[in-house]
């Protein structure tokens, strides 16, 4: 992106003044180097979002922003329903409530490394991954409805997961306002055999070691210490979310037209929050959030089973679970006034600051854990939400690295077998059903996640807490 189009507020905050139909300014939180590396499309998309009805304060792009569908990936925008505000399927994304959760293990590096391959095999056998894989859970219509209403709590009621986990999940593991009747039969059918599956693409399950602590106080509150072994899971709402996304994208193109909303780009398809389509989408999308939460809870259960086979003493408590493709109704202070807003986070992590009532008591003083996934050869980060961040972009931060190279380019540059071997030499064990998939996900095909989190911290969006590096990666 040409940085000369932007007005510098600080080294990590850049503004585009409202012009040409923009209702609010656009703000990009990123370093100069990250902005220069960003696609020009991000400029177009972040300014297009600023043109939508009912948008409040500004349209935001996070440090990892890249070309998305209507909204940039790494985009945050809030809408006021009473001001004609809209909800957008593209502003949430196809993989509704895709997210990351991190588990403690209580295991020491030495014992894990002594059984590294055995643990990788067990996890790979236990957690279904990759295209065409199915879980052991098959849902009939009644169970599907209960799952879509109950989220992670539904999974726990069925024996998948621990009750205490719920406190460590956004919305306590159950998104209110879900309406399974707005989820099509097609979406339900796509999901009926997919509960507890990881999926493919950039989704993964990783065993990680903590290699660096940046904030000792918050790390302690999070239960994160140097050399700890953690397990992180990255996946979303599977086929159900994808189907809801594709169906509503089309419906919203028509709805926007019906409501006289001029779309600068067809992909920005949206519907007024208070319209029929808007409410239908919110009901379906919230059901998909519950699907993602249930899915990650089941995978957590499978992970615990696998780890306990080798390490019966392991304690796999949940550190936290974040979703980075959502639209949520939240209360925020705008010019001294408390308002209910619909906050879209597309490829952006919620990052509530210290003291926020949504946070569980043990984490409230520290701020929300913000879990940032890396690649199978680099690092993941744990950050914490800040007070300042609440006023910057509605308590939001980045979500990951973002690709620097297309999948096709990656397969031309690397072979899966070679990537696996190179990583093995560095002490990282990969298990995946597809060598081509591994090549497409090669660490070199991604941007430097370290630069992204450093910029998020410098901008004040979140505070760095710890850095984790992979030991085992199960890739879908």
């Amino acid at each position, binding site marked *: 992106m040409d940085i000369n189009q932007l007005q510098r507020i600080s080294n990590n905050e850049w503004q585009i003044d409202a012009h040409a139909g923009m209702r609010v300014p656009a703000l990009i939180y990123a370093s100069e180097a990250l902005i220069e590396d960003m696609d020009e499309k991000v400029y177009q998309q972040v300014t297009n979002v600023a043109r939508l009805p009912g948008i409040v304060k500004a349209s935001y792009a996070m440090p990892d922003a890249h*070309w998305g569908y209507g909204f940039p990936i790494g985009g945050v925008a809030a809408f006021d329903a009473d001001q004609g505000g809209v909800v957008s399927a593209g502003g949430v994304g*196809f993989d509704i409530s895709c997210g990351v959760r991190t588990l403690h293990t209580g295991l020491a590096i030495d014992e894990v490394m002594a059984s590294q391959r055995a643990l990788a095999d067990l996890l790979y056998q236990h957690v279904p991954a990759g295209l065409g894989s199915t879980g052991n859970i098959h849902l009939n219509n009644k169970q599907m409805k209960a799952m879509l209403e109950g989220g992670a709590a539904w999974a726990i009621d069925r024996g998948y997961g621990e009750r205490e986990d719920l406190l460590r999940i956004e919305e306590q593991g159950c998104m209110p306002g879900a309406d399974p009747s707005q989820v099509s039969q097609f979406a339900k059918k796509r999901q009926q055999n997919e509960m507890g599956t990881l999926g493919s693409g950039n989704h993964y399950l990783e065993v990680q070691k903590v290699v660096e602590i940046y904030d000792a106080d918050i790390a302690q509150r999070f239960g994160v210490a140097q050399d700890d072994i953690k397990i992180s899971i990255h996946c979303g709402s599977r086929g159900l979310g*994808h189907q809801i*996304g594709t169906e509503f994208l*089309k419906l919203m193109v028509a709805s926007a037209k019906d409501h006289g909303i001029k779309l600068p780009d067809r992909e920005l398809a949206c519907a007024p929050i208070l319209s029929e389509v808007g409410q239908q989408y919110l009901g379906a999308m919230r059901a998909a959030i519950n699907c993602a939460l249930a899915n990650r809870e089941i995978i957590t259960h499978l992970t615990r089973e696998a780890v306990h086979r080798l390490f019966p003493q392991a304690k796999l408590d949940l550190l936290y679970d974040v979703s980075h493709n959502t639209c949520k109704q939240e209360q925020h202070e705008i010019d001294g006034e408390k308002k209910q807003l619909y906050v879209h986070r597309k490829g952006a992590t919620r990052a509530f600051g210290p003291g926020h009532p949504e946070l569980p008591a043990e984490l409230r003083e520290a701020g929300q854990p913000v879990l940032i996934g890396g690649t199978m050869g680099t690092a993941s980060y744990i950050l914490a939400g800040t007070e300042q961040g609440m006023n910057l972009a509605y308590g939001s931060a980045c979500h990951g690295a973002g690709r620097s190279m*297309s999948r096709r380019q990656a397969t031309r540059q690397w072979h899966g077998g070679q990537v696996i071997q190179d990583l093995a030499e560095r002490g990282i064990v990969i298990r995946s059903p*597809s060598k081509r998939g591994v090549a497409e996900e090669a660490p070199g095909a991604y941007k430097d996640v370290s630069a992204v989190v450093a910029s998020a911290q410098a901008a004040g969006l979140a505070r760095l807490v710890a850095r984790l590096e992979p030991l085992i990666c199960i890739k879908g």
Partner: protein
Amino acid sequence: MNAARWEHFEHKADIGIRGYGNTLAEAFEQAAIAMTTVVTDLSLIHAVTPIHIRCADRDHDTLFYDWINALIYEMATRKMLFSQFNVEIDQERLSATATGEAIDIEQHQPSVEIKGATFTELGVYQEDGLWVAQCVIDV
């Protein structure tokens, strides 16, 4: 000369599929091949079992969006991959046969699961006397 061919086009996070043909239907068939090759090599899929797909919509763009999404849906729910496509289009109604086989991880080495067609770079148009159908797919 047979103009039927397909290609991928670049999108950082995802990938674009594009089909060319002498007819609209042929461009749709070629785009379906382009989509399949995002997942695996076409030569690895045996055309054994045919399935039928029908869709209808108000214009060529949305009909193409429906076609690709219908294929993604069949791939996901039947756990199949398809290598041969036979499309007929009458006005805004599409009737097609996709032929393929059940996914075999060892045999097909599928790289990604396709989430859906998108409106990004979605277009059905004529260029130099050929029909072109394209969009970015979310993977």
